[in-house]
């Protein structure tokens, strides 16, 4: 039997919350390839994902939605586009405590330009409670400068409702954009 596999991609820098988001939605424990973080200077975390995160949930017709987390480290950026190929949409997670999170977003938008222009991309900004700058408005300004109108939401992916909200926003964009 042919089953149509569809996927939603979670992208974002190291520690932005991709694995946490996938775990919130997946009905199987997310399969994660973790390895020693060689970029300790960049991000102080023992392990970081070097391959991809994988989770899934099953729909009532038996088909599956795959949840793919792209590797956070920049040196894996060649994989981002490959992984996103054919995806329904991209949820781009931003860690607002990073040194230059606006630059991160600029970089990701470059890689996911098709998704951004097709309004199939949601930006979720995390850690805003401890790092209120840049503001959500600053992200919207950046988008406006690139002639893009995309949702920017302050989220905490440790709350499952916030992850669901990002999916609700993504689906609403897909439904509105013929």
């Amino acid at each position, binding site marked *: 039997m042919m089953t*149509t596999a*569809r996927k939603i991609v979670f992208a974002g820098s190291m520690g932005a919350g991709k694995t946490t988001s996938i775990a919130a*939605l997946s009905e199987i424990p997310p399969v994660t390839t973790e390895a020693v973080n060689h970029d300790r200077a960049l991000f102080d975390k023992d392990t970081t994902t070097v391959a991809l995160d994988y989770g899934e*949930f*099953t*729909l*009532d*017709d038996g*088909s599956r*939605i795959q949840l793919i987390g792209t590797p956070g480290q920049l040196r894996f950026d060649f994989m981002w586009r490959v992984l996103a190929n054919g995806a*329904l949409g991209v949820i781009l997670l931003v860690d607002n405590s990073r040194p230059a999170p606006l630059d991160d977003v600029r970089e990701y938008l470059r890689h996911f330009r098709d998704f951004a222009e097709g*309004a199939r991309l949601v930006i*979720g*900004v995390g850690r805003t409670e401890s790092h209120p700058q840049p503001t*959500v*408005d600053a992200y*919207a300004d950046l988008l*406006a400068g690139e002639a893009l*109108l*995309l*949702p*920017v*939401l*302050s*989220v905490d992916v440790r709350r499952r*409702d*916030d992850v*669901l*909200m990002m*999916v*609700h*926003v993504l*689906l*609403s*964009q*897909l*439904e*509105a*954009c*013929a």
Partner: protein
Amino acid sequence: MQRTLTTAGLGDKETLLIKSYLSLLSGKTREPWAFRDSGPVDACIAVPGLDAGKALTIRYGGDGELRLNAPLRVAAVIAVLDQASACLGAAKSAAAPAAATAAASVAAPAAPATRGDGRGTLAECLRSRRDDETVLRLSDGRARVEADFVAGRYRSSAPLLAQHATAADWHRDDAPAPVTAVEGALTWLMWMAGVGEARVQPGVYRLRRWPDFGALPHRPEFVRLAALFARQATSPGAAAAAAAVPVPEVEAFLGGCLMAGYAGSEGALAAPPPRPVATLDDGVRGLLGRIRRRLGL
């Protein structure tokens, strides 16, 4: 007698929780309570403000207010509903206040922009700001609000509820600054005021910026409306039809967006004919529907 209850400013999950509590409690409260998504109601459960921790407030009648602490416990919910029943009964027999109204269901048009006594909705008072005014101090007799248009912040002497935003007895009050109970981004205040007023001029509107649904109280329909207004300039009526939501809901959404600067008018032109949605083939539409069902969205 049958009592009705709605929620304002709560997340989907919390509203669902309240709904399931109500069905769970049938027969356990002094009077039966039913949930209403819109329309006039006897009571409304709201979050006092994003910064005010986890307590919920249940408002009924004119000024009645009870608190519900999270996590919700069945016994506490029963006690609070019974207390509201008792107060509503007492108020009725004293021929006192009309039923509370949910933010979404302001059926009657709001008060005219300039009433003789300078009173109006919170939105009207905020809009009455002159260019040279950087701070506005307002009161509705229950809460005093200071809106600082330079700092982009507001503070309030009491948590602001949906009912505060829909009330039409706001006026300027230049007494010394209020004791702060709640404070936050001015955008939040503007949004609440606009959603509560739920009134827009006929015309065609377009989203300029997505509201931060992570921070602003909203109902799930608002997200679908934002996606529609982001895609093309649309009239409230056309958006209501496309999203299958009541027009007052669209007006609440647009009211908030216009006040907070998330949407703008594209003039009084007729809405452009909607772009055909045929390219979103039935297969994809069905798939999106199944994802929604699976995740409860």
